[in-house]
Every structure is written in C-alpha cells, then in structure tokens.
C-alpha cells in the first residue's frame, strides 16, 4: 500500500495522518485502536492541549505507553482522567456539543460517508451480522466534526450500503438537515491511500489529497464506487521520524499497529 521504500506500515501511516487532523485545544471523542493512538500521538506532538474522551465514561485520560485500553470501559482508559461520568452522560455531553471530533471506522462506507457496521444482507435474516453501532451512530449524529479513518479497500468503499448504521452526509447537500441532524458533518475520510472530503459540487466523496506513494489509479481501483480526484489534490507529508518513534513507543507490542 505504501511506497516501496517507506519505512512505516500502512497502519502507522494512517495513525500518523489521523493525528494531524486534530487541532490543539479541542476535545476528541475516540474509540480504542487507531483513534485512541492517533489522539495520544497528537497530544504528544502538536496538540498537548487536546482532551481525549472515551465512551465508557472517561474524560481527559492519558494512556500509558505499552498499556493501552482494549475496551472503552476499563481501568486503562481511566488513567489520569479528570472525570468519570456515566456512559449515558458522556453521550449527552456529545449531544450538547462539547466534543469537537468524533472518530469512526466502518465495514461499509458509501460515497456520502454513510457507514454500515450492522448488517450485510437483509435485516430480518442477515448474511453477516456485524457487531453493531456501539457509539458510532451517536458520534455520527452528535459530534461537530466526524472523521472517518479506515484502511482503503474496495470491498469497504461501496456505492450502496445494505444498512445505514451511522449517518454521514446522507445523500449530500442538505441530507443531514433533512433527516433532522442540525449539527455536525463528515469533514474527512482518511485512509492509507488518501484524504477525502465532500467539498465537490456533487456532494460525493472525492480525493482532496493523496498519501505518500499512493497513485490516483490505485485509489480509484481500491474504491468500489466512482471516486472523483480534486483538480487541486495535494500530496500528504509522510510521517516524520519523531512521529513514528512516539507512535511505536505508545504501542510497542503492536496490539493495534
């Protein structure tokens, strides 16, 4: 996936570029895995004033390098937290508007950033029963900026979802407003190949920037729907030595990397 001479893995690239999406002095609602690693990396690099929140009920946690939480509800996720409200309260803070960013992944993502983590096939008799929303649907409905971060695979980026678990831009345009979603929008879809947004006229997903070593043809080929490349598409900077060192220090045994 990455350039031949790249000295980092695809998930390292993904995590580092995700961390760069997070501005200092903001609040990020992060799940475990890549989102939490990206958030911890951001805190350790350009965003020391970033506050991390996880859905189990932890505000301001500071993960211990090499001892990352595996679930959002466990003691490792409460490390150095400033508050431990109920799970319901955490989501109500999101609904109130306290959280700037929400990270999402997904088994299926459509051209408008809608996500399916529930069902492949029919609702009443699914072909594949996926784990479900968890907090994903809530994050998609309630956070100010929704950041979709995932590996770039053709089977994942599909023209039509079997089931919309987490609303993205719905059908583009005023889709969210029409559904009653007054707040929030998908501001970035980040993969190991590209950074995509919805800035085009069509309201569909389009490539705003390419990851180092990724070619437009490769991105299109790994996408299950017709994907526009912005004429002014940039090229993202590769991870720095410092970023990689810090990241690897956070997850030395590569539980999530």
């Amino acid at each position, binding site marked *: 996936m990455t350039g031949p001479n790249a000295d980092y893995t695809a998930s390292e690239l993904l995590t580092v570029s995700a961390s760069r999406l997070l501005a200092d002095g903001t609040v990020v609602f992060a799940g475990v895995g890549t989102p939490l690693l990206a958030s911890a990396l951001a805190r350790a690099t350009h965003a020391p004033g970033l506050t991390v929140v996880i859905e189990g009920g932890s505000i301001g946690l500071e993960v211990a390098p090499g001892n990352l939480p595996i679930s959002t509800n466990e003691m490792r996720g409460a490390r150095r937290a400033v508050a*431990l409200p*109920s799970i319901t309260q955490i989501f109500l803070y999101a609904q109130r508007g306290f959280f700037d960013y929400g990270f999402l992944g997904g088994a299926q993502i459509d051209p408008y950033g809608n996500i399916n983590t529930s069902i492949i096939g029919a609702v009443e008799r699914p072909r594949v029963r996926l*784990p479900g929303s968890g907090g994903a649907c809530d994050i998609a*409905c309630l956070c100010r900026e929704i950041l979709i971060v995932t590996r770039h695979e053709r089977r994942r980026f599909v023209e039509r979802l079997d089931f919309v678990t987490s609303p993205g831009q719905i059908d583009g345009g005023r889709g969210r407003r029409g559904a009653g979603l007054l707040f929030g929008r998908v501001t970035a879809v980040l993969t190991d190949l590209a950074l995509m947004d919805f800035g085009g006229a069509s309201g569909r997903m389009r490539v705003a920037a390419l990851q180092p070593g990724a070619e437009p043809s490769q991105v299109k080929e790994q996408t299950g729907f017709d994907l526009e490349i912005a004429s002014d598409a940039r090229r993202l900077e590769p991870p720095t030595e410092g970023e990689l060192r810090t990241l690897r220090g956070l997850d030395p045994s590569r539980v999530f990397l």
Partner: protein
Amino acid sequence: MPERSAITFVEARRRLEAKNKAPRDKRMPLAEAAALVRDGDHIAIGGCLYSRTPTLLLREVLRQRRRDVVLSRSLLCYEGELFLAAGACSEIVTSWVGIGLPWGLSRIVREFVEGGNARFEEWSHLAIGMRYHAAAMGVPFLPTLSMLGSDLRRTTGAKTMTCPFTGEQVCLVPALHPHVALIHVHRADPFGNAQIEGYPHMDADIAAAAQTVVLSAEEIVDPDEIRRTADRTVIPFFAVDAVVHAPFGAYPHEMYGLYDVDLDHIDAYAKRVAAEGVAGARAYLDEWVYGPETTDAYFGKFGVDRLERQRRAARDLIGRRT
C-alpha cells in the same frame, strides 16, 4: 416496546407501587438471589463489556437453567454467547456485541442470528442509555438527536416528532423496564444502599428502571458507613430486592481499583470459540459454569495466586485513592 417481554410503562409503575419498601436485611445466598430471575424475563446486565459484569450472578442464572430470557446491556460481552449457547436466551438488546477489537466478530452471535435462531435488537449506545434513563425517570419516552438519519431508527421502531417549542425534529425512544437488573457493585449495606467506584456505567438507571434488582457486592458494609458517605450512594435501598456478598463477583472481568480483567482467561475462551464455535462455548459452560458446584470451586480453578496477581495489577493501574 419493540422487544418481547419488557414491562409496559404503566404496569412498571403499578408493580413498583406494590413493592415492600421497608428497609430490611436483603442479604441472601447467590442461588436464592439468582432464582429471582424467571424463565422469559428481560434481564438488564450492569457494568459494561468486561467491566463490573455481575459474573457470579450470571453464572448462577445459567446453572439454574433459565430459558427464553432476553438480555439487554449497553455493550454485550461474551456472556451473550454463553446464554445463547446454553439455550437460555433467544433475544439480545444492545448497541454492540463482542469482546473487543483484537477478537473480531462473535462467531456464536453470527451463527444464531444469521441462522434465524436468535433476535438481535440493535439500538445506538446512547439510545440504550436513554431507554433505561426514561424508565428510571418514570416517563414513557425520551427525546434524542441520535439515530436521526440512521436505519436503526426504522428497525427499532423509534419515532420522530417535531419539537413543539423549536420546530426541530427529534427522535423518541421508548422507556425500557427490565424484569430484572443484575448489578455488581463495590460496596452495599444489607438494605441494598450501594456505592460504585470508578466508571458508573448505566447501573443507577438500570436499578431504578427494573422491576426487580439483584445486587452483588464485593463488600457488605455497616449502614452507618453508608450514612457517613451518603453522597457516594448511587443506588438507594428502596430500589433493591436482593443483596449478595460476592468478592471477586465480576471475575474474570475487571472491578475498578480492585482487580484487573483476566485477559488470558478471556483469550483462551475466545480461541476455543473461534476454533469450535458453539461447541467451544458449551465446553466452556461445562468446565466453568455447570462444572464447579460452588463459588469456591469456581475460583479454585483460577487459583489464589492468579486472583492476587489481578488484584496487584489493579492497584498498579489505579494506585492509592487518597
């Protein structure tokens, strides 16, 4: 209610009004407390995923061979797999089911749901919380901005309405009144006044929402200790029906500040199920649930050293609480 067998709003209030609210000693043996769960009941499980799970209570419910129960929980861990594999459960109500990222999809839930042998009613995580919160508040529904634009709204039977004050659209979710709530806490007195440390999860709402509340506690304390720290009490006695003294009552799941999750044990279970599917879960049931006749026998299989190791791990993680 969309799911089978939860209690209706009006009926829930009537049953609560009829309950004996006298402060009395509610301590009883594990088996007696677990027997408050009946076939066909909707059971709400306290804690979340592998944290503060009422493991000993669930184990006893399984040992009593309950049938046809509905399980609801904010995030359902592998206890859901065990109930399905045991033939004790035909429906789960949750926002997510699994053990965690490293273990992938639940093979057993897939087999049962994809095979049409179990129903998985999925709500968003906040929606589950709002349903318990509505029931705890004594209102038939609550509004939320979540699930708007999601197919979950359609499949769950949640409604939308226009706010009469602002003209904005909101999603309405119905109150969820479980028949029984199984909750494990750090500390309770014999009357059922309960205190929790660390993450409160959704337990306070579940306790106020359910018709019958069964508490297990790491420690049973004198009521005077509760009275000295009344502002730490999250579940008042009048919501509680049974109190069980259960040290390590969540094990192999974690108990905040007291013992760490036993990932080795969970990983071994997961590997077995990944390899053998339902047969693997049934083998686990035989070895860890039906096999050990007593709680001591159950913990004996883990061994004292292992429990102590997990205690130390928790202390290292949380440290002293001034």
